[in-house]
């Protein structure tokens, strides 16, 4: 096993899937000769050529709509939206078309389609290079939404997404690209969609997170341990379909749950996780389920003071976790 960054793991995942299956191809803005603005596809254009690594015009609906058509005709496209913030022009194609192909044809059509989108803040990206979109798309039946937080999961879930027969929105947190390093198992390891993962065992309380917040929760758990609080950290990894069993299991185990995400609070993923716990683990709770989220403002501003005020961080997680532990 070698230690890799998240961006290296994504690149390796795409490379291996393209080598394994000639129907896999990549389409998006700047993915070709440039190798992607984050270099996620660095080297793939040279290796696979212009028919399998396609620089699209600057048109998101085109990227997704063309990918849908190619998937209809036997291909397995990976469509890259350069920033999650720019996915809105493709929403008609994603929600009204891709997500409904199977349902509206009673299973006659299905779309093996991956839409990759870099998301999340903490990168001085301001309103339009920082957004979280998982709750918006998690609400849409017919889509699967994955949010890896480690290099191993990034690669394994990329492979799962490519091999899945349904449309998968693959969200990669920009801040984790080079910040988060970890061992990536050698060989063809697929991480199943729909399975959360306990990243740290604990008994006093549970921190439930994904993406960059997973890293922050693991750091917080380390400090909590020094304070004598044993925190379990559950990495959701998949938003849709969400792993209800894993959520209920950790809630029953510790009786105290804090859900953390940087997406807006209202009707966010935390609200769904809390509802699952209330429905299925109410009798095991020792405290109200808590959440720490981004505020209900449109997105995080460019100014650093305002960006930090928006983002959950280790200190904010610690403060909330101590409040929960004291219950």
């Amino acid at each position, binding site marked *: 096993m070698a230690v890799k960054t998240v961006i290296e793991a994504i690149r390796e995942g795409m490379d291996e899937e393209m080598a394994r299956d000639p129907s896999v*191809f990549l389409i998006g803005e700047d993915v070709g000769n440039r190798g992607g603005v984050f270099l996620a596809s660095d080297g793939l254009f040279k290796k696979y050529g212009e*028919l*399998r690594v*396609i620089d*699209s*015009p600057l*048109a998101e*609906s*085109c990227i*997704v*709509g*063309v*990918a*849908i*058509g*190619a*998937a*209809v*005709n*036997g*291909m397995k*496209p990976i469509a890259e939206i350069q920033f999650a913030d720019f996915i809105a*022009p493709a929403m*008609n*194609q994603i929600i*009204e*078309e891709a997500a*409904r*192909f*199977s*349902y*509206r*044809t*009673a*299973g*006659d*059509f*299905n779309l093996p389609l991956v839409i990759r989108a870099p998301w999340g803040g903490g990168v001085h990206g301001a309103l339009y290079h920082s957004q979280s979109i998982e709750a918006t798309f998690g609400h849409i*039946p*017919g889509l*699967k939404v994955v949010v890896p937080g480690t290099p191993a999961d990034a690669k394994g879930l990329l492979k799962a997404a490519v091999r*899945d*027969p*349904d449309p998968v929105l693959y969200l990669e947190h920009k801040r984790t690209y080079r910040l988060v390093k970890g061992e990536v198992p050698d060989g063809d390891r697929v991480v199943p*969609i*729909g399975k959360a993962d306990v990243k740290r065992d604990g008994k006093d309380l549970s921190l439930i997170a994904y993406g960059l917040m997973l890293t922050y929760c693991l750091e917080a758990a380390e400090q909590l341990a020094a304070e004598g609080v044993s925190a379990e950290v559950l990495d959701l990894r998949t938003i*849709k*379909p*969400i*792993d*209800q069993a894993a959520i209920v299991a950790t809630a029953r185990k510790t009786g105290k749950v804090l859900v953390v995400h940087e997406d807006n609070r209202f009707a966010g993923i935390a609200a769904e996780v809390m509802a699952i716990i209330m429905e299925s683990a109410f009798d095991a709770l020792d405290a109200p389920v808590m959440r720490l989220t981004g505020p209900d403002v449109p997105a995080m501003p460019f100014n650093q003071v305002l960006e930090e005020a928006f983002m959950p961080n280790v200190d904010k997680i610690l403060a909330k976790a101590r409040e929960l532990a004291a219950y």
Partner: protein
Amino acid sequence: MALKTTEVEAKGGPSRHRSLGLSDEQALRIYEVMRLARAVDERMWLINRQGRAPFVISCQGQEGAQVGTAAALRPGHDWVAPYYRDAGVVLWFGMTARDQMLSFFARREDPNSGGRQMPGHFGSRKLHIVTGGSPVATQLLHAAGVALASKQRKEDAVTNVYFGEGSASQGDTHEAMNFAGIHKLAVVFICENNGYAISVPQSRQMAIANLADRAAGYGFPGVVVDGNDVLACYEVARQAVERARRGEGPTLIEAKTYRFTAHSSDDDDKRYRQAEEVAIWRQKDPIQRYARYLRDAGTLTDQREAEITDRVTVQVDEATEYAEQAPDPTPDDLTTFVYKQEVPS
């Protein structure tokens, strides 16, 4: 005023279909599919007005543009991405009157959608008919993608994509033509210009007389054709399909036509167009015009006409009877096929 029979003849005389490479049988087959599309549609309106089914959306008046252009393709090899009026296209591509009626009555057995979509939302993987939803113009990008896949695999399949001139105002139309032009994809863009986006006339949709002019901006040819002259539609489509199959890229065909009915069974077209205008266009009915030509050519005899009428009537009757009595979906069908690979959660 009625068109003279000589109008069609003037464009090539009584052997026009033969000069286009169509045998008498092929020419009659085109005629029969146009008749079938019309007859199914007329029956749907009848049933709707009797209160036995909630919704119709019509192909009437546009059958020439539909069947004429679809006839240039190889069903089973090539692809179509139709829009909701394209009954003539999908019947040519292998759908049946029964399929249409099952969809009309929203039965479980409806091959398009299992009774989930409104009528006119065609789709069949096996028949190479790309499924369509209700938001317009999305299918133009799907067609570009289907054609991209053909190019990636070095196959010579051609994709015809159909849309009304209303859809031409959508951004997806621009994005699809732009992408198809860049990559010289084997797509034929077929606009059935019926003059209205529900109630809004062409003059309030675009500042130009011919949508086909836009093709120049995408680097491929644009052609205007009389959409009510089925052989003219076949001719331009065949040229476009051959060009696409040679790898020379897309063509935009603008078929000028007209819809005889209101936009749908829920629309009242008297609010936005004159009865006289509809009457004038009914004189240009593509089916009647083609019948006159075929009779003048000696291809359509009284006996053949009677046989075709019999077959069409039997198909519509049997389809209606079968579909009306076919079972509805059950409440359990509500939650199936959200995904191909369901993941329990």
